């Protein structure tokens, strides 16, 4: 089957859509189920991304090694796989630390705390030259295999990332239908009542936040491979905003919310507008990123005003319970 129609730009656009859907699923579990606010999604994603670059053995653009240089006893693909796993664990540790700090806070405190964490990750990426390459970034990150062309390699990596995100989506879907999902919802809805029923609400939130933050780090590590080169510019707040806008637009309490939301925002802009809209090139370089942020922001305002629960609306436990248990 010919894949000529599938340009490298389209593959990258699809990869971004897949990344955002994955992060949307994870944020859905945090915010939509357990009621934990996370305004630092990019921090965990970026931590995974940079941790991968550092652990894998990326180097500064000048070719000089970073401070951390692990002498891997084996090469790719195991080196990349081990690096992805370790990067995921690093992001999980970040989630554990931040989760421990914010687990007793109200929503406002959680948003500020996680935003602060993302700012710290950004500042570390920008300032620690020996560790992160600073503004120069980290290069030398290639696919852990070579099946021919760059496009073919990217397509295979897209398939791997898609499989991971589908697995995250399936897990999220199952969580809604499990006692664990009910525990998360109960904890998010009424913590004192959940505690009175014997549920350790803080511990529940802490573990959930740790695991989902690790998931965000996993996606960040996947992204590091396809972009090959990491700079602090990739850790902008626009990533967090895009995930939050997409989730709220689609419906924060629904499994399919992030999918619908991401397709209508990131998908529309990164694929349809960027690749197929007949605008002059200069627009794409200068105006389009700003226009994108403006439209994201306006979409959020309109949705919050007229459909605050998103396009798909609120969760319907009644329908779910009827489908599972009858009556």
């Amino acid at each position: 089957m010919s894949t000529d129609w599938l340009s490298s730009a389209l593959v990258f656009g699809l990869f971004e859509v897949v990344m955002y859907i994955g992060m949307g699923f994870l944020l859905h579990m945090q915010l939509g189920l357990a009621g934990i606010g996370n305004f630092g999604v990019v921090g965990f994603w970026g931590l995974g991304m940079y941790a991968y670059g550092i652990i894998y053995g990326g180097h500064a653009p000048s070719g000089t090694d970073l401070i951390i240089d692990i002498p891997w006893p084996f090469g790719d693909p195991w080196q990349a796989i081990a690096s992805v796993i370790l990067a995921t664990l690093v992001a999980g540790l970040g989630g554990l630390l931040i989760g421990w700090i914010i687990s007793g806070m109200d929503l406002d405190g959680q948003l500020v705390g996680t935003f602060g964490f993302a700012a710290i990750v950004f500042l570390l990426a920008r300032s620690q030259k020996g560790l992160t390459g600073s503004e120069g970034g980290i290069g030398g990150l290639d696919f852990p295999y070579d099946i021919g062309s760059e496009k073919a390699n990217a397509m295979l990596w897209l398939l791997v990332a898609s499989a991971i995100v589908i697995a995250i989506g399936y897990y999220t879907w199952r969580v809604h239908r499990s006692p664990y999902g009910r525990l998360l919802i109960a904890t998010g809805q009424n913590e004192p009542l959940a505690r009175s029923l014997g549920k350790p609400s803080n511990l529940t939130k802490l573990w959930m936040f740790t695991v989902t933050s690790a998931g965000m780090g996993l996606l960040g590590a996947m992204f590091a491979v396809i972009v090959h080169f990491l700079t602090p510019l990739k850790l902008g707040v626009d990533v967090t905003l895009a995930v939050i806008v997409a989730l709220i637009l689609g419906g924060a309490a629904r499994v399919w919310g992030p999918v619908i939301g991401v397709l209508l925002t990131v998908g529309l802009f990164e694929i349809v507008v960027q690749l197929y809209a007949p605008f002059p090139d200069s627009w794409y370089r200068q105006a389009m990123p700003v226009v994108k942020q403006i439209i994201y922001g306006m979409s959020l305002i309109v949705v919050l005003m007229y459909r605050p629960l998103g396009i798909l609306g609120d969760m319907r436990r009644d329908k779910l319970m009827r489908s599972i248990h009858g009556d």
Partner: protein
Amino acid sequence: MVTEATDTVAATRSRIQIQGAAKSFSGRTVVDIDDLTLGEYPVEGLIGPNGAGKTTLMRMIMHSTKLDRGTVTLVRPDGDDRGDVVLSELPTYAMAGLGVVKTNQVIMDFEKLTMWDSMLLSVAKPKQELPFKIFAEAPLFAEHEEEMRHYLDFFSLTDPADQAGSAGEKKLLDIVRCLLLKPSFLLLDEPTAGLPDDLTEKVMEAIRLLAASGTSVVVVEHDLNVIWNLSDQVHFMAEGSVILQGTPEEIRRHETVVEKYLGEGHVGG
């Protein structure tokens, strides 16, 4: 005879021992109890005027309100070798696991959860709620369906796949959640408030059955007919302390209680 210290009937039930426990808010002492044991009788009533400290005492027992000083201890029945547990050193969520459970005075519910959800939340054990137990719903439901349906029928709760709608349904659901936890010591804070007479009767019947099965029950209730009809022992609380203890008959005839709290309407018959 009304006494200031309760005679022990039999230590066949779980009891709560409160010693030297005090709680103040903004410098005002709300509860100050030297030595009190609850649960020596199957059903005990805790009464007193508004502001006497009843609800605060219950919250102190559950450790949802921290004590300024003193201890609250769960005393196991004779023959139970698990040992006594100092509840006031434990987090709130640990109480249910020890069998110490309390219903809520104000109506509390999980807004988005259905009645099935609420009941399944109560019966689920920690190991069934682990993040990787994503296929545990069906076995959990099968394991507890019979007892859940029993309570639904008992309290005439219909359509459990929907949320509890009325205040009465939410109140009953709160009680059902607690009953499904199989408490060894149950505190009921105004369990019949706002309920119609027929459901009040149902709640009282449920309490009697529970007490007969070995659970210690303590009821705080402003509807004194519930207290007189249910209780084997009554504690009268005023200004943060339990000042009188006795049978319902003894308490309702006591001069101080009549004068300060009951009025003449509750004396006699």
